[in-house]
């Protein structure tokens, strides 16, 4: 009897300890998010001012004179919007093809495997690959090159995110449409796309968020300039690189601007993230439950 009691206690003590450790881990993970945001806000806000988001760098900006990072903000938006649009052109057909034509088959698994592998390729490798492509076709560092490389970075993220929601669509809708005589293409375009629109939008915005924050891929491909982006074939600035370059400056004033730029970038990414949540919740009203 005594032994049984001891055993009972021991396993319950273990249970309590483990549960406590789990809660602590969850707090640690949540706290690190809080710490990151806190650090960026506390260091970024004092350096943030109206000039930062409305001016391009003026003469002597990198020695602490006036100016802002409007060139990088606009450049990043162009790059990410361009990259995202280009990625959608490839992602949506793949995701639709997997659902409407392939289904859960071996072939689908191979495609998903290749997408997951692409997702894992670091953006610095995409950047290096993009640079070799640019040399091959004689393209200089430019917005176009940056957009193409960002599209490559975003492609697997967007496709897998779309695929994950689309493949969960109940088969009934698809079968009902097929039974009424629609072709698979019509099912893809008129049923799946509409029913899964919230998920598709979320996937697009997820990829956009990744694209706008990615530095390593645009490092050699998009270049950097103090002017506002004007042409697809000219270099363009981007926010992640603005943070990176300003941080490397020996002038404290410029470093503070790096923190402010990081805050701007974080705000954009958070707005996109929350915005996609809100938008997808709203769009759910128009889907068949």
């Amino acid at each position, binding site marked *: 009897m005594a032994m049984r009691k001891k055993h009972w206690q021991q*396993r319950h003590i273990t249970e309590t300890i483990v549960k406590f450790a789990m809660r602590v881990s969850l707090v640690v993970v949540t706290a690190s998010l809080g710490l990151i945001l806190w650090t960026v806000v506390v260091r970024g806000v004092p350096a943030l001012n109206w000039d930062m988001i409305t001016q391009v760098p003026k003469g002597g900006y990198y020695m602490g004179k006036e100016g802002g990072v409007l060139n990088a903000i606009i450049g990043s938006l162009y790059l990410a919007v361009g990259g995202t649009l280009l990625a959608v052109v490839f992602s949506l057909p793949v995701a639709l093809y997997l659902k409407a034509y392939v289904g859960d088959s071996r072939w689908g698994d191979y495609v998903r495997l290749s997408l*997951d592998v692409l997702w894992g390729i670091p953006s610095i490798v995409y950047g290096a690959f993009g640079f070799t492509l640019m040399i091959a076709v004689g393209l200089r560092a430019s917005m176009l090159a940056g957009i193409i490389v960002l599209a490559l970075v975003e492609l697997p993220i967007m496709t897998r995110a779309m695929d994950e929601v689309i493949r969960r669509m109940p088969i009934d809708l698809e079968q009902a449409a097929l039974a009424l005589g629609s072709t698979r293409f019509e099912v893809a375009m008129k049923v799946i796309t509409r029913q899964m629109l919230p998920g598709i939008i979320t996937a697009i915005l997820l990829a956009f968020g990744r694209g706008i924050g990615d530095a390593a891929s645009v490092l050699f491909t998009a270049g950097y300039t103090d002017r506002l982006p004007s042409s697809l074939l000219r270099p363009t600035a981007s926010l992640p690189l603005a943070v990176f370059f300003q941080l490397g400056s020996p002038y404290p004033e410029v470093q503070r601007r790096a923190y402010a730029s990081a805050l701007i970038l974080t705000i954009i990414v958070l707005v996109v993230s929350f915005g996609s949540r809100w938008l997808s919740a709203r769009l759910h009203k128009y889907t068949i439950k």
Partner: protein
Amino acid sequence: MSQDNQTVNLEKSRRAEGRVTRPSAAARQRQDRVAKRTFFGITLVPILLIVVITLALLIRSWPIMSTYPLRETLFGQVWKPSAGQFGFWPFMLGTLWVTVVGVLLAVPPCLLVSIYLAEYAHATMRSVAKPVLDLLAAIPPVVYGVWGLLAIVPFVEHVLAPLSKRWLGSIPLFAVNQPTGFGILAGGIVLAVMIAPLLIAVEYEIFSTVPNDLRHASLAIGATRWQTIRRIVLPQVAPGIVAAVVLGASRALGETIAVLMVVGNVANIPTSIFDSAYPLPALVANNYGDMMSIPLYDAALLGAALVLLIVILIFNILSTMVLQRMSRRKWQ
């Protein structure tokens, strides 16, 4: 026959009124066939892309591979591009150290969190945790780098290094050989937080593939929850957990900007977690673009990217195949 005529007439009158008519069945079939072929073609893009990227890097780094024996490049300890010496070894070790430290720091808490979310937490707790993890995953690498620079590097310098000096100074692995906080530990901590959302999400998915019947059976004979997890759930998902860790490691291997900002970038062979290191991605990012005048430099850097790519491809393919198999598993 008359009915057919009637239909044709109806179509005609509609067309005359300017109303849109439906395309014929044959046209729709044709459209479907064209779409199928186009979609199939686009679906080949991701698969081809992997091959093309690997081949492009291979071709462009061929000069270095053909000039020096592979062993000399991979295991060479000296990196002096101007003298024609391109040894990857310090950089490969730097990558390995930072990745191992990051993964070791990330795995235990992430495993616990994913178990908690999958096995213990209520739906409300999950709906709170998910946005937190999503946001953590959404934060750009360069912001992680800023955080590392502003918070983690000083923390390592002023808190962890003195602590280690005081208590663990005699162990070479924890020896503090340089005064700054920039180094493997700072890089590892930043990486650990960066890969946490991925690890937790993948592990959570794996746990939810285990059918509830197994848990219920175990709980019904009086096991505690933890006993159920230890003896029933974990053995079922162990390969998946390993795969998730490998996947996280491959993400950590390739992380560039954030690590580059906190790891010190000194090309030596590290012996302690407080040493600075110079990982492969940082090498490529720091030097690519301004190396055109030195012969073979460009090929060497792309060779470094290729080494990184091959390791990551192997890690990724293996772990993804295990995970795919796990999620498709049929339970009797």
